[in-house]
């Protein structure tokens, strides 16, 4: 089209006094924004291609670069914002669905930031985690409701299969395909070293990573890619993915172009074919159907692996969770509407689902009310941003959390939200070998471990401040939370009092 409706979103600001024309920006930008002009003898840029991933900024040795949002604007309009207008232009041009990635970026309330944590003063002493034992290890799975003893009075150890987490943080599902081999290796190695788990997502398990099986959760999604007996038994747990926070109610689509040899082998589909995950599991139309799949998987894994059912947080999440808790599943994973993705229709990502804080509180309450809370553990994800979010989640009733966006940030992601283009300059959401190699798992795994280590320290400190010395004592302890700036209904759903009460 002759008319260019879209004005570049970003501007590349290069400080000519600092640029030494080393060309690292040029060499590192897969979007080909920068190049050296031999006639002008200087670096120039084509900012229309910039996605604001900061790779160039981060590698520029003289800090000569920064990226800024353009101040080119439409006439001020609080309703028809520039973004809304540009999306219309884009669709008027393409006739297609808008695609986005990572989590919902819209300005919805963040309940974590409206919840405050308690601390001990005088009447019950706080605990110094540097001096006192502080237990953050936790187990996921069914909890026995009664203790059984044999004729000699010895306890019969008939526990259901469980996952032991040395930190209450797991890496949530990201498939090999949506993220790179090196990103997977980083997650796998960090999980092993930190005593936690990462999750294959629906892309199968690369043969190289079977060695990390004891720290792997293998996923069974609607496309059933890569699912077979060895795969199911390779992991420590099996997760049935019903939905994901970024795109509840719809399936996935990995274009054939991305199904290269390695991915085709891992997904067990022919090279170059589209990998389509249907919106529903075609064998699950009821809780009873779900129960069948749960038990099929238990059967396939000799009742040795806990089964996780992952759903996205939607309107009647509590009732659904109640059904799942009765289906035989050991763990329910709930993914809030801020959860990330490698690619989702923008409208769905930005408008479907509910906040994880509310979903968690209502699920925990419902299961308690029904006396089935111990049937399952609850894991929540969908924008756990820091250790305070984790402490609040656990106090709201979670057993552990799933993180993915924060993990990717540790690996270098700058949340440019263009994963769907497959040209991730940080070597994360790409399959292009020259880009994948940018993520050295030696560095990646160390950064992930650092993040978990740092968060663990902070969790211990916050727990100590409350006078609590174990995750178990914090779990569901909503008295440790207070709301701020929340209305009655919100406080009621969250099951917490307002600050000052």
């Amino acid at each position: 089209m002759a008319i260019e409706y879209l004005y570049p979103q970003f501007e590349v600001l290069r400080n000519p006094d600092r640029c030494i024309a080393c060309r690292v920006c040029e060499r590192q930008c897969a979007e080909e924004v920068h190049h050296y002009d031999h006639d002008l003898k200087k670096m120039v840029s084509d900012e229309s291609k910039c996605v604001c991933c900061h790779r160039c900024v981060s590698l520029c040795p003289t800090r000569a670069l920064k990226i800024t949002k353009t101040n080119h604007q439409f006439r001020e309009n609080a309703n028809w914002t520039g973004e809304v207008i540009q999306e219309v232009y884009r669709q008027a041009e393409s006739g297609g669905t808008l695609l986005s990635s990572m989590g919902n970026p819209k300005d919805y309330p963040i309940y974590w930031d409206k919840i405050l944590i308690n601390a001990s003063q005088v009447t019950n002493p706080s605990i110094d985690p540097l001096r006192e034992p502080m237990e953050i290890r936790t187990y996921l799975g069914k909890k026995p409701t009664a203790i059984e003893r044999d004729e000699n009075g010895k306890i019969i150890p008939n526990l259901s299969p469980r996952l032991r987490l040395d930190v209450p943080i797991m890496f949530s599902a990201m498939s090999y395909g949506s993220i790179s081999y090196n990103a997977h290796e980083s997650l796998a190695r960090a999980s092993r070293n930190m005593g936690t788990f990462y999750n294959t997502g629906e892309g199968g398990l690369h043969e190289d990573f079977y060695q990390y099986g004891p720290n792997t959760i293998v996923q069974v999604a609607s496309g059933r890619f890569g699912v077979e007996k060895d795969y199911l038994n390779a992991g420590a747990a099996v997760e049935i993915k019903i939905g994901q926070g970024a795109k509840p109610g719809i399936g996935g689509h990995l274009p054939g172009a991305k199904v290269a040899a390695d991915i085709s082998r891992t997904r067990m589909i022919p090279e170059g074919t589209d990998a389509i995950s249907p919106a529903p599991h075609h064998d699950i139309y009821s809780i009873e159907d779900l129960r069948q799949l749960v038990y099929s998987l238990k059967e396939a894994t000799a009742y040795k692996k806990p089964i996780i059912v992952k759903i996205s947080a939607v309107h009647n999440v509590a009732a659904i969770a109640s059904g799942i808790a009765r289906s035989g599943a050991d763990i329910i994973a709930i993914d809030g509407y801020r959860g990330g993705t490698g690619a989702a229709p923008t409208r769905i990502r930005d408008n479907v689902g509910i906040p994880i804080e509310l979903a968690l509180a209502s699920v925990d309450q419902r299961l308690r009310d029904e006396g089935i809370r111990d049937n399952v553990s609850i894991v929540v994800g969908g924008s756990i941003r820091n250790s305070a979010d984790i402490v609040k989640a656990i106090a709201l009733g979670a057993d552990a959390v799933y993180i993915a966006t924060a993990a990717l940030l540790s690996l270098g992601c700058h949340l440019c939200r263009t994963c769907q283009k497959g040209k991730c300059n940080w070597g994360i959401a790409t399959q292009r070998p020259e880009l994948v190699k940018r993520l050295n798992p030696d560095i990646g795994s160390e950064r992930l471990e650092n993040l978990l280590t740092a968060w663990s320290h902070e969790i211990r400190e916050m727990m100590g401040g409350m006078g609590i010395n174990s995750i178990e004592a914090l779990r569901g302890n909503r008295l440790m939370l207070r709301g701020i700036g929340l209305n009655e209904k919100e406080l009621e759903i969250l099951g917490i009092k307002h600050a000052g009460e």
Partner: protein
Amino acid sequence: MKRVYVNEKWCLGCHLCEYNCAFANSGMTDMVKALKDRDIFPRIRVEEGDSINFAVSCRHCDNPLCVKGCISGALSIQDGVISIDSNKCVGCFTCVLSCPYGCISTSESGAVQKCELCTKNADGTPQCVAGCPNNAIVFEER
């Protein structure tokens, strides 16, 4: 002895090692001042291939042909590090002819130059390695 080793698999061909080297050996404290609008003469150089890159610098051989062939005694082994006394070097290039790795090169001064593991500059530890964004070069005992 610790040497600079190449992990070819992780080299991105970003060439930052070359600039960090040139800066480290410039004697200046500001990279812009040291390198802006200049041709650089790094002691480490990145080779570029279709999808392979790697940086090459002096291997600090135990049995250094450059030292053995040096006509002036300018090249010598100092605590394992192959050092060049640029004062003594006359720029005959016998070392360029001798080095199997192509790691001795010309400098602005006419004497040859080579990696001395940053033992002679203010940093004291190889700056190519310190600045490598992907651990493609490492400084370690092997």
